[in-house]
Every structure is written in structure tokens, then in C-alpha cells.
């Protein structure tokens, strides 16, 4: 199990207080909130978009919206849930834009999962997990394959599988983020996994 899971909901218990302070105008509180969540926001944005630069930019935008919308945020959901909602909404819009402008529609699945076809910029930006070179190479390939396969999933399926199987969220949390019943989330997850398996199977042939 990786850091993604260790950083689950439990460690964000102080968010509510930080949000209140930020709402009162304390910028350092919002900065702390960003520090806590920036990595997961960028990561989810990357999983949704498959492009590092765009993901970083989108994450900025998500935080900007959160910051500007802070006064209207009543803490009915957790800050993290709200942040994910914003991020995923922005991702969906960005993906639609990609579709209209035919961005990234023909990424070969064995290509590195970055925006640079000649290199693997993502690998450089991914946290060093101090693995041996062989293991690292295998992981890099795996990342590329999984990311490319994710790119083939429609948005609602992709987000569920990303949140559950990559970010390790609970069904309840995902249901809140997606504003859907838990049952829908579950059935969508199972279908998404099947789709992902099919894509990987197809490409490994």
C-alpha cells in the first residue's frame, strides 16, 4: 500500500478549523490547506487528464476557485470533498475541450504517458520511491500503461476508478464527491474495472 492510502481522510481532521480561519481572512491557513491537499489534487487532475502541465494548471485553478468561493462554503461537506468536486468538474470541462480540439485522442498505449512523446517527463516528476532501477523501469512502464488505459474510459467511470483504486477513497466519500448514491458508485466501479481490464488486455496482446 502506498502513500495514497496513508493520506486518507483521517489525517485531514484539522481542515475544518483551517477553513474557518481562512474564511476569516487568514491566508496562512489557506496556504496550509493547500499544502495538505495540493499533491492529491494535482495527482487526481493528472489521472483525469494524462498531461502533467495541464494537471498542474488545473490544480491551480481548482484552488483559486476554492479560495474565491470560500466565503460561501458552509462546511456541509469536508473541505477535501469540496476540493475534489471542484477539481473533477474542471477536469470534465477540460476533457470536453480536449475532445473538441482533438487533443490526445490518438495516444498509443505504449507511449510514455506524458505530453512529450520523446521522453517521459512524468517519470521525472513522480516521487522517488527509492526502488532499484529495474523495478523502477517496470513501474514506469506500468504507470504509462495504466494512465493510457484510463484515458480510454469515459469520465464518470474514470473518476470512480481513480478515486477508489488509486486514491483509496471510501465509497461514501466518492458518493459525496460525485453526488450519487453509493450503489451507483459501486456498480460503476465494477464496470470501470472491467473496461480497464479489457483495454489492458487488448494492448498487451
Amino acid at each position, binding site marked *: 500500500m502506498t502513500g495514497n492510502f496513508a493520506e486518507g481522510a483521517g489525517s485531514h481532521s484539522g481542515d475544518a478549523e483551517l477553513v474557518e480561519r481562512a474564511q476569516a481572512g487568514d491566508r496562512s491557513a489557506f496556504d496550509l490547506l493547500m499544502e495538505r491537499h495540493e499533491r492529491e489534487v494535482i495527482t487526481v487532475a493528472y489521472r483525469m487528464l494524462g498531461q502533467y502541465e495541464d494537471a498542474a494548471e488545473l490544480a491551480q485553478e481548482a484552488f483559486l476557485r476554492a479560495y474565491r468561493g470560500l466565503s460561501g462554503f458552509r462546511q456541509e461537506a469536508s473541505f477535501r470533498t469540496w476540493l475534489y468536486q471542484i477539481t473533477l468538474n474542471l477536469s470534465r470541462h477540460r476533457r470536453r475541450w480536449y475532445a473538441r480540439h482533438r487533443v490526445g485522442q490518438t495516444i498509443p498505449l505504449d507511449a510514455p504517458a506524458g505530453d512529450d512523446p520523446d521522453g517521459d517527463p512524468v517519470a521525472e*516528476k513522480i516521487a522517488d520511491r527509492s526502488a532499484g532501477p529495474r523495478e523502477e523501469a517496470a513501474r514506469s512502464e506500468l504507470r504509462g500503461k495504466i494512465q493510457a488505459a484510463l484515458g480510454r474510459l469515459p469520465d464518470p467511470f474514470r473518476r470512480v476508478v481513480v478515486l477508489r483504486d488509486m486514491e483509496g477513497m471510501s465509497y461514501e466519500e466518492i458518493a459525496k464527491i460525485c453526488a450519487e448514491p453509493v450503489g451507483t458508485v459501486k456498480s460503476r466501479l465494477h464496470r470501470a474495472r472491467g473496461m480497464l481490464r479489457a483495454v489492458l488486455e487488448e494492448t498487451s496482446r
Partner: protein
Amino acid sequence: MNPDCQAFREKLSAYMEGELEPAERDAVTGHLGQCSACARELGALRQMLQEMKQVPAIQVPADFRRKFWAKVEGPAVGQLLLRRILEPWYLKIPVGALATAAVVLLAVRITGVVPNSLKVGRIPISAYNDVNSSAREKNRASSDDLKFQETPAAPVAANEGEAPVLVAGPAKMKARQLALLERQRAAKASARPSASVPSPVAGAVSAGPSAHRYVSPAPFPMNTMQPALPGLRLRVRLYARDVTAADDRVLRLLAEIPAKFIQPPLPIHYELQLPPELVETFLERLKPIGSSMDLEQEAAASPGSDSPAQITLDILSFDFR
């Protein structure tokens, strides 16, 4: 694949998670005992999920938060665009007014109408008087934007280097502007006690002699990186002590814009439709009414002449053509 297998495979994920009903679960267990292909698929699914969990998180760019705070401080895109349009004045526009104006701008682009006009208060030439009040009364009825006029003359003195003031929307904005200008004026007056600055109080000075001086706003460097503008259509209204003087100012303002682009439905009410190539000129011409030097000479040449306190240019609407 066995035709049955497809149905089973769709259940493998839920099976793995223990989410199937007991009967279903048993059926799948039974099938897996007999079908090695489906058993392998279950293994592959588990393997995939394991691998997905191991895909590491993405690293945050080092300057992520610094960039964020820079964006928080910086103006929004709409504000930037507005600044581009109202370039000569923008140095004097408080951010709050810009935000309001940006909203107005968006409304313009959608509807073609400015809900609340943007008002450009020109620097006074001398004290305001009410010769033109009937015309203003007429306009008051036709527009919701005339709170500005309820304090007839902006208490601004003819300070060199003073930029015109843009006031958008609510009256409180105006009040802030006035307070700001008052402070600036006071500062300058105390710095140069000998300078004879006419009393700026609204209506208090009627046609008193004054320094007949126009003031140019501070020069503003054109940003060559800015994108070219489309054509600009403006409806403007001009307030001044008398219409003739206003006309004169406007004509000087617009001297380089061919007459065919200027349609005056009323003497003090202009509609300008500018092709792209003239927008730059227009903005350029709007910056100074005249150079301080010229106007000081003019004032010296006609001492004692009185003129309107203020020329107010209201931008009633603008849009892009």
C-alpha cells in the same frame, strides 16, 4: 470464451469485494472452480488493482503555491481586458471598481448594453456651474447611472499629472474616489502652498477665475504583447458647463478620427463606431485632452476666462465589432 463466462466476469469485481448476494457469490465460486480462464481473469484483475495502488502520486511543482498567491493578487482576465480598453485611466481605477467594471464588460459582451455606465470624470477646468443642468435633467431621466451627477462637481483640482478618474456603478465608489482625490489634492496643496488651486467644492465656486489648465494623465507604456483589439463601438455622453465647450473638447479629442465614425444624435451625446485600426488612435487621443504645457499657455493667453468645472465623459456602452 464460454458464453456463461461473460456474465461471470462482469461479477468478478463485486465478488472480489464481497458485495454479491450469497446465492450469486456461490454461483461465481462454483464457476471459478471449473473455469480456469475465469480464475485467471480474477487473478489478473487483482493484479491490476494491486498495480494501480502502487502508481505513485504526482509531485507538486516547486513554485505551486507561490504561483497561486501571485494569481490571487493579480487581476482576473476580464480586468486585464478592461484595462486594455481603458488604458489611459486604469492607473486610477481601484481594484473594486475594476471588478465591477469587469462584470459590466461581460454583460456587454453578452447583451451589448452596459447596465451601469462607466463614468470618466475629467479633471476640472474651473468650477462647475449649472448652465447645462436642464440637459442633464433630461439625461437623468433616461439613465440609471446618474448618481454621479448628484454631487455635481468632483472636488478635484487641476493637479499636474493627475489622471482622469473612472467611476463605475455605485455611488459609494464615487465617494471613495472623491476621498482619494481630496487626499491627493491636499497633499499637493501642502507641498506647494503658493499654488493657487481653486476651491473644488461642488457648486461653491461659480465661474470664478481659475487656472485654465488641462491635465494629462501620466503617460502609460503600451504593452506590445497585448493582442490586437477588434473594432470598438462606444456611446459616450459628455457633460460640461456648456455644450460648445464640450464639443470643442470632444472634437479635439477625436481630431484624428474621421467624421464618418462619429454620429452625434445629441450635441453632448456621441456614438462612435471605430474600426480596429482607429481604436489605438482613439485610446491614444483619450489620454490627454491636451498637454499641460499647451494648456497652461492657453490659460495664460486668456486670463480670467471661466470654463466648466469639469468635463465628464460617460461611456454609456461599448462593445466590439
